[in-house]
């Protein structure tokens, strides 16, 4: 059987590509080694967000007194939260299976091996495809720390399968994943210690935002040690040093969240002569094409923008190019979100990135607490909205927010960046009142 498109990996790149290609009338083969939906649906975004919502609800129940809601005997039932998580995941997977069936996408489960001439072998059967899309995702890295193979050490996949809350948790790595889990477990009463090797958590974020995130999480049972070098993990504690001074963090469980690595092994990429880049990912151009004609790659396996929505967009770009529509990636306008409480949502350039590109910029920032809706709903919670503007053209270059559910309004900023709106045009946009989104309009009053 010969296919128009053979897709390896059914995560947010693979199933989106399959759906879109199916809509375009292509004959599609989708191969998945584990479960439909990939890490996002099964081991990442979806389960972690379900549990984060559980933690948020618990937190609101505990702290309702500001709003006059007095509740006693509030308990967190991890088992029930997990059941909800499983239900959401099962529902989503069924949804994807339905989408594939409707578009007559051939779905095969098993490990795929690629061969010259764009051949795909699954469970001994070989298939041919005019185009191959590799979107095998990424896996958590395991740094060489003594004791890292202990039973109490988990990665982001393992921690989502816990059936009981740990008594205490040490998180190695204060990046996005580490902060989200720290927020989740801290909010439900687990003492959490985050060990970050760099001077600030979430180093890709604007430092003002990272500072606020750290102080907000500190109110949720999370202790941070910055510049921390992890030396050894044992059964109930983690030894680390800050400025060569040894310290110990107590942790019944240890989460290692030090990054993810592209899944490129055992795919036959060497036989296909597909190039890798310096990050170890499959090298792709702006159309997500590899060096081998007809072979494409999207998502985490490229080592670029490790975000589910970036993967889906890359998949779209690939299908567009296969079907003759010109399209290419614009990484600058892909938003990033940290789903902590409060949420962090950013898009575009930070001031530092803009200066690095030789742009002359000015910035404006405004605390979320000036916003009526935010003040009403998030008493005592810090938040910030910051914009980066190019001098001269007054073009918006970046929007950086922390506070409430700002992930839900970042798309507005994405639209502004995609259409290259300037201060002058944004000034004429009407924002509904009262909403937290008004900060995006109001922040411009602070731009010099």
């Amino acid at each position, binding site marked *: 059987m010969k296919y128009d498109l053979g897709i390896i990996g059914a995560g947010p790149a693979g199933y989106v590509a399959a759906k879109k290609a199916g809509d375009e009338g292509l004959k599609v083969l989708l191969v998945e080694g584990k479960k439909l939906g990939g890490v996002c649906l099964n081991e990442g975004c979806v389960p972690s967000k379900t549990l984060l919502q559980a933690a948020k609800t618990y937190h609101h129940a505990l702290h309702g007194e500001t709003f006059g809601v007095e509740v006693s005997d509030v308990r967190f039932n991890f088992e029930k939260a997990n059941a909800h998580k499983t239900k959401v995941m099962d529902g989503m997977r069924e949804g994807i299976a339905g989408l594939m069936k409707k578009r007559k996408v051939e779905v095969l489960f098993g490990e795929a091996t690629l061969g010259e001439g764009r051949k795909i072998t699954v469970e001994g059967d070989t298939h041919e495809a005019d185009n191959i899309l590799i979107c095998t995702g990424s896996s958590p890295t395991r740094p060489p720390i003594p004791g890292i193979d202990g039973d109490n050490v988990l990665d982001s996949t393992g921690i989502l399968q816990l059936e009981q809350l740990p008594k205490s948790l040490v998180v190695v790595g204060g990046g996005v994943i580490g902060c989200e889990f720290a927020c989740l477990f801290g909010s439900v009463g687990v003492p959490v210690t985050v060990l970050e090797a760099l001077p600030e958590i979430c180093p890709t974020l604007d430092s003002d935002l990272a500072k606020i995130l750290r102080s907000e999480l500190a109110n949720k049972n999370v202790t941070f040690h910055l510049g921390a070098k992890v030396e050894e993990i044992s059964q109930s504690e983690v030894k680390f040093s800050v400025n060569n001074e040894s310290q110990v963090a107590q942790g019944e469980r240890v989460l290692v969240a030090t990054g993810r690595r592209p899944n490129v092994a055992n795919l036959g990429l060497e036989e296909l002569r597909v190039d890798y880049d310096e990050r170890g990912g499959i090298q792709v151009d702006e159309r997500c094409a590899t060096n081998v004609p007809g072979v494409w790659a999207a998502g985490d396996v490229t080592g670029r923008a490790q975000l589910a929505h970036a993967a889906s967009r890359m998949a779209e770009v690939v299908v567009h190019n296969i079907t003759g529509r010109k399209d290419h990636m614009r990484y600058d306008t892909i938003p990033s979100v940290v789903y902590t409480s409060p949420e962090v949502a950013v898009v575009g350039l930070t001031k530092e990135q803009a200066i690095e590109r030789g742009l002359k910029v000015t910035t404006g920032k405004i605390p979320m607490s000036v916003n009526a809706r935010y003040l009403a709903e998030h008493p005592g919670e810090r938040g910030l909205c910051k914009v980066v503007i190019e001098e001269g*053209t007054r*073009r918006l270059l970046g929007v950086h927010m922390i506070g409430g559910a700002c992930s839900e309004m970042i798309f507005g900023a994405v639209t502004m960046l*995609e259409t*290259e709106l*300037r201060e002058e*045009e944004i000034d004429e946009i009407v924002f509904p009142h009262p909403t937290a989104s008004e900060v995006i309009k109001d922040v411009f009053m602070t731009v010099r």
Partner: protein
Amino acid sequence: MATPVIMPRLGQSVEDCILAEWKVAPGAAVEEGAVLAVIETDKASFDLESTATGTVLELFWEEGDDVPVLANVLAVGEEGEDVSDLRPQKETATPAPAPEKSQAPSSDALAPVVPVSASPVGSSEAGVSPRAGKLALRSGIDPESIQGTGPSGRVIERDVEAAAAGRPRLSASAAASARETGLEPPARGKGLAGMALAGDMQQPGAIEGAQVEPVKGIRKLIAERMMESLANTAQFTLNSTFDATAIQTYRKRKREEAGDASGPKITLNDLIAHALILTLKRHPDLNAHFLGDRIARFEEVHLGVAVDTPRGLMVPVLRSVCSKSLEDLSVGIKELVKSCLEGTVLPDQLSGGTFTLTNLGMLGIDHFTPVINPPEAAILGVGGISLRPVPGKDGEVTTAECITLSLTIDHQAVDGAPAARFLKDLVDTLENYPGEDVGQNNGEETT
């Protein structure tokens, strides 16, 4: 009282100048003598200096415009002053005539006061259909910029549709950049669904992977003149090589005589020019202008010398050289070349030649086909020195430094044989330079 700065008359033959580049903008404070703009005649460029002190009130022309001499170029005065009386009268686009007239009226009939250059492809003469006009307005397209496909080039709806389809949507910043800097979007931008982003905007007419600049000023004039030359003359090139031993020996002797003292350093080109002038005197057929219905043969030689300058090829003319000594000729050529390189050459020094000399020898060229500078009837090209076998005294073969001359003639004015005789005479003159009795061929050139 606002004062106009006028386009100076830069020479008797100069009727208009191209405004190549503005050096000031409205609102700028200028003093008398300040450089306001760079202007170009058909041969050279000059600074336009302010004749008044004050604020620049209005620029009446755009870069690239052909401005007639003595026309007002800009106004200087006090801020807020009215300059409407000073604005020069320019040719304006004629309103579209009734579409029933299928034959476009001759633009000559309207005798434009000022020729406005760089006009768009517009087809205002054939008009724009009302439907096309409305669609153009809605699409933000200037219908004048569209080549119409209707009767007599009338712009009709489908032309506007095609123009609209060929241009991408612009992002807000790209649109601002188009308005403020005149940049244009590519056929497809890098933004949403091909939207043109600010970074995609390019100079009008840009070509990917190439630096594109408009053909204007001296480049444009060279292009026009070269094309005119090849289109209107019957060019025919003859090559002949001469033994340069005589002129090399003479040059060495001159140098030794001069020692370290100042005075002109005689070059091979000077010696060739001198021999050329001596020979031309004997061949008036070659020292001529072909004027279509008449041929003018000159008694005096006005020698054009091709000069490579940063702005392009220039051909300054050294006038009345027949009686000049080698030394005077050498000094004269050097001064002309210097003034071309410095941009101080006067427009009148760039016209009126009867014969042109061009030399690519120093660039390693053996021989080439020079292009005639009309209405001149001939041009001589000089190649580089190369060692060639020549017969020695006792019949053995020896080598000598040789130079190839390339003579292009306008066959309308001169035939091949007289041209060949001229070249032969020139070769003899050079090989026997300085010679006491050159010109034995005199009298044969008119056959």
